[in-house]
Structures are given as C-alpha cells and as structure tokens.
C-alpha cells in the first residue's frame, strides 16, 4: 500500500461502489457451478425465443399455429423438412417449440415481475406502517398463500370461460405475491429500526420518500432473488393450465403441445413430439431455479462455503 503511494502512478478514477459491489457479486456468482449452468441454459433458451420469429418467414407452412404442411397433414417423424417432425395436423413441431419458448419467457417474466412488484409494495407498506394495516395484509397473505394457485385459476376459468394469456398472467401474479410480501415485510421491519431511517425521519423526509428512497433500495436485491423463483412458478402454472386444456387458444405454448400429444393419443407413437416440450419446460424452470439458488448464495454470505 505504502509502496504504491510512493511511486507516482496515476491513481485510477474512484470506482462507483455500486459497480464494485456488483462486480464482486458477479465474481462469487460466476464461481458457483449452479449459477453458471443456469445462466448458460438461460442464454440458450433466450436465443431460441429470438429465433422463433424465423421459421414462418422461411415458409408460411412453418407457422406454429396456422402453418400446415400440405404434403403431410398428419403426425410424422423427424425429417430434413421437419427437424422435429410434425403434429397431428402436419404443423412443424420445431417452430411450435420455438414459439413456446417465447410464450414461456413472456409469461414467466411478466407474471413474476408483477407478483414481485405487488409483493414488495404490500410487504413494505405492511412492515413500515404496522398496526391494523399490517395485521389485515398479513392475514390476507396467509389465506392466499395456502391456496393452490393452479386450482384457483381453474375455478376462475369455470366462472369466466376460457382465459386469455394476459388474464392468466395477471391471475398468477395475483396469487403469488404473499411469499415475497412476507419476506420483504420482515426485511422492512429490520430496516425500520436502523439509525439511517431515523436520521431521514428527523431530517423531515416524508413517509413516501423514506419508503421509496431508503427502504426500497435495500429490499430490492432480495426481491430480485425471489423473482427468479416466481418465474419458475409462473411458467409451471401456465404450462399446467395449457396442458389441462385451459390455455389461451390463440397461442402455442409448451403445455399446449403436450396437451395435443396427450389428447390426440400420439404419446405412444410419437416420442419426438412428446419429449421436446416437456424437456424444455423442465430445463427452463431448472435454469431459473439454479440461477435463484446461486443468487441466494451471493446475497447471503453466511451460505458461502469458506473452506472451499
């Protein structure tokens, strides 16, 4: 240290502590095999989602929903023309699979984002205000938490008929916030007692300002962690709904592909059709899950294995 001071090396510009921390976290994250595998898988899926627009451009018969190969018109095994074969109507399975990736990402990320936003708001308000607000919100969250989301959404489908994809996303978001809210509430409660919150209050900051400027930045990393787990949940619920035949009829999702192979009785004859969608759902949820666990270790230094 002192030697460095004596030599007249131009001192590097002071680095942003946030960036420093991020880089630090990234290093820990990167060393984690779970995180690395999860990230690689995720990139593969992201590429698949982006590529999904390509097949219909090559030939309309590759459109996942409306494109039917006039020469096939039925389920066929993989070939040069259809790398993963065709479904019962002669539609290309690979294009369906790619389109399904896009839907899965969309559903997963948007539902997770909304449920996290809701959960963070409820958690912060509940923890910060306390009193009756807290009691009522937490009771509500307890009730919603024990409800099986899939069956609740199913019940809503019974009432309102077939649900559009965005309604499904909204429903998933609405029923998946309590877990996050409870964690954020606990975090807020512990932050509330810290001196810097008192200091802000003494300095005359409004409640809104304290919540958004002082508490929120501190709970966001945790919220982000929960988001990866919520993505997993949302993807699975949407896929399960579609599998049961309650998906949005206007989209092609992996769950729907599985429903088709199951309902049209092709599962014993067409493994090329049965295997890919399920494998994709499982791998995508696995990658988000691994990402979450790796982030968990980054955010919680207690979990870090010192001896390794």
């Amino acid at each position, binding site marked *: 240290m002192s030697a460095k001071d004596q030599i007249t090396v131009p001192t590097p510009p002071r680095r942003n502590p946030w960036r420093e921390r991020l880089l630090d976290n990234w290093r820990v994250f990167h060393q984690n095999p779970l995180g690395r595998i999860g990230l690689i898988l995720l990139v593969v899926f992201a590429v698949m989602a982006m590529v999904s627009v390509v097949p219909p451009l090559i030939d309309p018969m590759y459109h996942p929903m409306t494109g039917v190969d006039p020469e096939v018109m039925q389920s066929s095994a993989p070939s040069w023309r259809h790398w993963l074969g065709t479904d019962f109507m002669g539609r290309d399975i690979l294009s369906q699979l790619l389109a399904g990736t896009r839907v899965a990402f969309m559903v997963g990320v948007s539902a997770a984002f909304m449920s996290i936003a809701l959960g963070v708001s409820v958690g912060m308000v509940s923890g910060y205000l306390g009193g009756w607000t807290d009691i009522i919100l937490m009771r509500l969250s307890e009730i919603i938490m*024990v409800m*099986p989301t899939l069956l609740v959404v199913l019940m*809503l489908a*019974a009432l*309102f008929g077939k649900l559009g994809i965005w309604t499904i996303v909204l429903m998933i978001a609405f029923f998946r916030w309590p877990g996050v809210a409870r964690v954020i509430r606990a975090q807020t409660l512990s932050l509330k007692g810290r001196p810097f919150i008192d200091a802000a209050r003494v300095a005359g900051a409004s409640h809104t300002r304290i919540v958004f400027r002082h508490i929120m930045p501190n709970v966001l990393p945790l919220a982000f962690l929960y988001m990866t787990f919520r993505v997993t949940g949302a993807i699975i619920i949407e896929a399960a709904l579609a599998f049961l035949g*309650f998906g949005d009829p206007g989209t092609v999702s992996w769950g729907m592909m599985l429903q088709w192979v199951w309902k049209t009785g092709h599962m014993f004859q067409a493994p090329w059709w*049965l295997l890919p969608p399920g494998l994709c759902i499982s791998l995508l949820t696995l990658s988000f899950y691994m990402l979450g666990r790796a982030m968990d270790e980054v955010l919680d230094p207690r979990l870090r294995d010192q001896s390794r």
Partner: protein
Amino acid sequence: MTRYVINRLVQIVVILFMILTILFVLFRLAPGDPVARMVDPNMTPEDAARLIAQLGLDLPIWRQYLTYLGNCLTGNFGHSFHYGLPVLEIIGQRLPNTILLFSTGVLLSAVAGIAWGKLAAWNKGKATDLWLTVASLITHTLFLPWLALLLIWVFGYKLDWFPINGMISDEVWLDPDSGVLLKAWDVAYHMILPLGTLFIMHFGAYLLVMRSSMLETLKEDYIITARAKGLTEKAIRNHHAAPNAWLPVVTSVGLSLAFSINGGALTETVFSWPGIGRELVFAVSQNDYPLAQASFLLVASVVLISNLVVDVLYAYLDPRIRY
C-alpha cells in the same frame, strides 16, 4: 393445545366462509345467466323449477346469498350436470381416493427426503452428496404432467409393468370371490405409477431443505456436547442432529402443501385417478359448475386442514412450541 386447535378450526371456517362469499360474488359477476349455469339444460321444466326454488335463484340477491350459504352449510351443492347426481354424493366418493393418494405421496416423499437429506449432509462434499443434490435439483423442477406421461410411456406401455389409468380393475372388484387383500393389492398396483410421479416430484424439495438444515444443526453446540459424551457418530446423527434438523422440513411441508395439491390434481388427471382434483378439472372442462364449486371448496378445506395438521405436528416435535 385443544384451545389452539379449536381456534384454528374457527379460523378455517371463517376462511371457507370468505371463499364462499367470493365465489358467490364472482358467480353473479360472470357473464351469462346464473340460472343456466346452475340448472342442467337436460332437466324437465318441473325439475328445473324445483331446483331453481331450492337454490333460491328466483329470489332477491341478498336472499339468494342466504339461501346459498344455507345450502352450502347443509351440504346441498346442487346436482352435477354430467352425472345427474347430487354433487355431495360424487365428491363424497372421490374424497377418500384423493386422501389416499395424496397423503401417501406426501408422506413417502417427506420420509425419503428427510432420510436422504440427512445422508447428503452427513457426507457433505462427497459423491453421495453430489448425486443426491443434483438428482433432487433436477427432479424437483420437472414438469409433472410430462413426467407422468413419460412414466406411462415407459412403464405402462413399453415395459407393460403397471396399469396406466384408473384405481381398480373391474375383473377383480366385480368378482365376488376376491378377498379384501386382493382388492387392496389391486389398488396398490394401480397406485404405483401415480405415487411414483408424486414421489419423484416432491422428495427433492424436502431433501434440499433437510440437507441445509442438517448442515446448520451440525454447527450447534449441543452436537459438540454429544460428541464429548462419547456418543457414536450414528447416535449423534440420529438422536441429536436429525430431530433438530427436521423442524424446518416440517415447516416446508406445510408451505408446499398448496404446491403439492396442484401436483396431486395433475397426477389424478393424467392417471384418471378418481379423486377430487380430477373431478374439478373434469367439471371445469364440462361446464359443470355445481360440481366444480363443490370440488374446489373441498380441496380448499383439505389444504387448510392439512396445514393445521402440520402445525400440530410441529408443536409435537418441538417442545419449545406450546400453543
């Protein structure tokens, strides 16, 4: 303890009442004629009129609500369109099947998850640990219906080892000579694949929780005490570490019950297991609203009561908790 259980039961009743109210409101808000949703179109006009009167659908809205609550309280959920039978009768038949499959599945996977999690933590960093952890990570995130279809494809179709749907075989149950044992065996035989599905899906979560909880517990001071007392490693693991480590697992069983019951419904549907979950899915797809509503209420009650059971079990395992 008794007071606590009574308290919780009252809470459960309140929650069910809230669910009923929400369903009532949504039912009126939903597009379409409420009468058409509750009354089977195939009924004779007289029967329909009687049912409408019974359900109070011709009354002002608040009297409808009271009639509805009264009907639900007395178990009168209306007639199923599809079966043409009182709903209560149908779900009464389905409930034991669901409880049999679901509780066996949760119990088996929890027991195995705890045992293997213990093993993984005890062998931390070794091959056993690695394999168990990786296996549970992968199985835990499988898509359940897909797993079920794969099991059917491999073990039911290719290998032809197990029946792929239903709960009983007619030739066994219609034969007056089959004894109870044979019938039980028949059910167990049908249950293997659905149970396997639930098991593969669920043991991983419990294993991972047990593993990390066990690792935390092994750092506690009473483990050093146990070691100082000269206990064998096995005694330390089974009598001191494990009984403390499985407390968080019990909590996680409680928290994941809702998730498990989703899986239960999917499993029942794929394997045509005659349970409440499959009935709910079926009723929704058939627009059989009375049946769907009753099935849903029953599933909700099952979840709420299972949660209570888990909390009581926790209190039993942890002497520090006294309600």
